[in-house]
């Protein structure tokens, strides 16, 4: 039988490097998957996952078995993605000072990305909050309760957000139909 994550995490927090290695290799793919669904870019997701891996040894100390390890790890991943997004926003704003060259370049990137495919387009149409919720409920197939726990919001909020997502999708479908 497999050792439960929680036991591994406790052992790793106490300094057992084998436990830590086992924990990481067990969860790397899952973290990467969520990171991709949150960021929509492979490169970003790889960077993000690596950041989290690097920070995990220090963070494990703050894991208090109150939540399941996977839930906790999802939360860590979502928070790291938020941080990254926030920084990116700052950079984008700061880039205003770079003049037209930078603006044009960025516009070019945005167009290229938008044209990529339906998924990218759909995800881009959603606000960051909705995107996170979608990544967790649809991508990771968490229940609304688990999603709420990861995002630190109420279950009602998650339910509301998903209905909002449906609304957006319907609007998008209607818009496509009109074209």
């Amino acid at each position, binding site marked *: 039988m497999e050792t439960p994550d929680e036991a591994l995490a406790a052992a790793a927090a106490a300094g057992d*490097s084998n436990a830590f290695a086992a924990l990481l290799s067990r969860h790397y793919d899952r973290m990467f998957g969520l990171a991709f669904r949150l960021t929509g870019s492979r490169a970003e997701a*790889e960077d993000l996952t690596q*950041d989290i891996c690097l920070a995990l040894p220090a963070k494990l100390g703050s894991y*208090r078995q109150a939540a399941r390890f996977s839930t906790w790890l999802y939360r860590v991943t979502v928070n790291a993605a938020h941080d990254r997004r926030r920084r990116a926003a700052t950079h984008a704003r*700061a880039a205003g000072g770079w003049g037209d060259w930078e603006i044009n370049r960025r516009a070019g990137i945005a167009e290229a990305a938008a044209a990529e495919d339906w998924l990218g387009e759909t995800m881009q149409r959603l606000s960051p909050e909705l995107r996170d919720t979608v990544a967790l409920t649809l991508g990771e197939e968490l229940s609304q309760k688990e999603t709420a726990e990861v995002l630190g919001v109420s279950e009602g909020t998650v339910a509301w957000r998903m209905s909002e997502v449906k609304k957006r999708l319907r609007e998008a479908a209607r818009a496509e139909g009109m074209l």
Partner: protein
Amino acid sequence: MTDDDDLEKLRASLKARTPAPGPAAKAEALRLAMENFDRHQESSKAARPMSDRPGQAGSLTGVAKVLSKLTTRPALAATASVAAISVGLLIWPELQRDLTLPKPRPTAVTETGPTKTKVAAGKALQPEQDGRASQEMSAADADTPPVVAPADDTRDNDILPQLQEAAPPAPVRPSSRSLERSESADAALAGAESPANEVVQPAPSGAVVGYAPTEAEMAPPPEPDTEAYANADTNPVKIAGEEPVSTFSIDTDTASWSVIRSSLTNGYLPPAEAVRIEEMVNYFPYDYAAPDTGEAPFRASVSLVPTPWNKDTQLLRIGIQGEMPALDDRPPLDLVFLIDTSGSMEDANKLPLLKQSFRLMLGQLRPEDKVAIVTYAGSAGLVLEPTAASDQNAILSALDRLDAGGSTAGQEGLQQAYETAENMAADGRIGRILLATDGDFNVGIYDPEDLKDFIAAKRDSGVYLSVLGFGRGNLDDATMQALAQNGNGTAAYIDTLSEAQKVLVDQLSGALFPIADDVKIQIEFNPAAVAEYRLIGYETRALAREDFNNDKVDAGEIGAGHQVTALYEITPVGSPAQLSDPLRYAAAPEAEGDASELGFLKLRYKTPGAQTSKLIETPIPANPGDADIDARFAAAIAGMGQLLSEPKYLGDWGWDDAIALANGAKGKDEFGYRSEAVQLMRLAQSLSR
């Protein structure tokens, strides 16, 4: 098409389109994590997790990314030559890895490396890779010294020693403009960090690139000192004939004093920007006359005393005493603790002190009061549903369960706190959010301006917001001030348990029960009696003259029993201390009228919740008297503040005089605050030698 079909399609394509992680990236990440793990066992000093890409960590990943781009994007015609260069790139970083001697780098490598990269840049280069290459050059040439953050000992970075030689060490104590600094760094970084793409990029100018990669390349900095202070230039001397009206908002914050204390007791002089004299003076209780019942909720007393540092000028002291409502029939409170539990709160003087402080405060609450706890970062949002204060066990155990952990932005922290407070609201209750933080305001709203707007909008809901600062290092004093000012609350900085005792126990009623909102002071000086004047402190609270009568303009609040002191240094007409000469070409303004009035004091305030303000007016007689104990002590503290920030008006008056003055004006000093002040003056004196 039904809704569920839509969702199903989204679900399916999310599943289908998520790629498997690259094996190289995975191996690299796992390897680095293991290294970090081992290092962490040696020193358990937690590095604050940052989202920035760790430095050297990425060399293999970068290559893997280049390769993956080449393979996964058929649109990009990957010619054989590009592939060959990529192989070169693959070998090159490995070569560097083996170079144990940091400097000098063999010329061949420095020369060819970047050149090759540049060639590759023409087709498929990642911006980051470009940044790295350019940085190699700038580090080797050392012509544009990059701003280097202190090394993070938990990251491996073999470029580091080299950079440290080339670059000046990072300032330990950045300027008050650290915000701008980081933004310019961000601006420089924007290029290096922008998402990878195949668009051909012209290389930006050398200086920018030379600067840009440092942070991207360096490991995430281990939280350098990023304190930011609310500050403005010292108020200048004004000529009463030219500018007779002085307007400001009152300020009952005391954070500046605590920050100064914490600096001094840690053995260094506080940065001048941390000094806000009005907050130092207002830290201390004074014995002002209380308002009569049935009148305005506060009383202003005015006195004119000799200036200790200048025998030819006078100090005008305006002392405001807030009424102390009978505490027995105070309205019940709805308190929402909004607590920052991000990893940086782990220090003993942050979250643990916060828990102790709130525990002290619980003893002051009544059974009918309610408490809710919302956290942000990591752990879930609402950790304690609104609970009657009588249920101490539930509240205490919720407090105990709080852990510093979680990376950062707990979403919607502030929104949730306001929501909770609004849900708790009922007639006759006072709602207040107590935000406790060490300066990370990742409360779910990312833009500081949005944050202010949000709070200003919420202010109208009647919920007050007070900010309690804990710990030093990234204390964001400027944001704390902004939040508290916009949220109709106070900002206090808690560095010790005794400070918590003062703020949350001894003066709790003042901290929690507003008696007057938007209190503004305007003084019109009489040019016949006053030649020059200057307001000591209140720089961050200055108001435009016309704002005084504009009830839309926000100003400071007075809490129950609060005291506010404002000091003007006045140069009477004919005094040799006058600094300005009369003009030669413009006629001196006619100093008309009676010189028996020094000026005219006007106060505006709103009763809590009211939309329109009330006005109090009183003339200030021009008859100087002897300074009472309180005036002398306030003057000593004002002198101390000037010595710590801008002593140009003090002449020869120095620490010895300040200490002697304060020592002789300790009075009863029930709580020992004044004795402590004298101790701190001594410390400051020694430190400034």
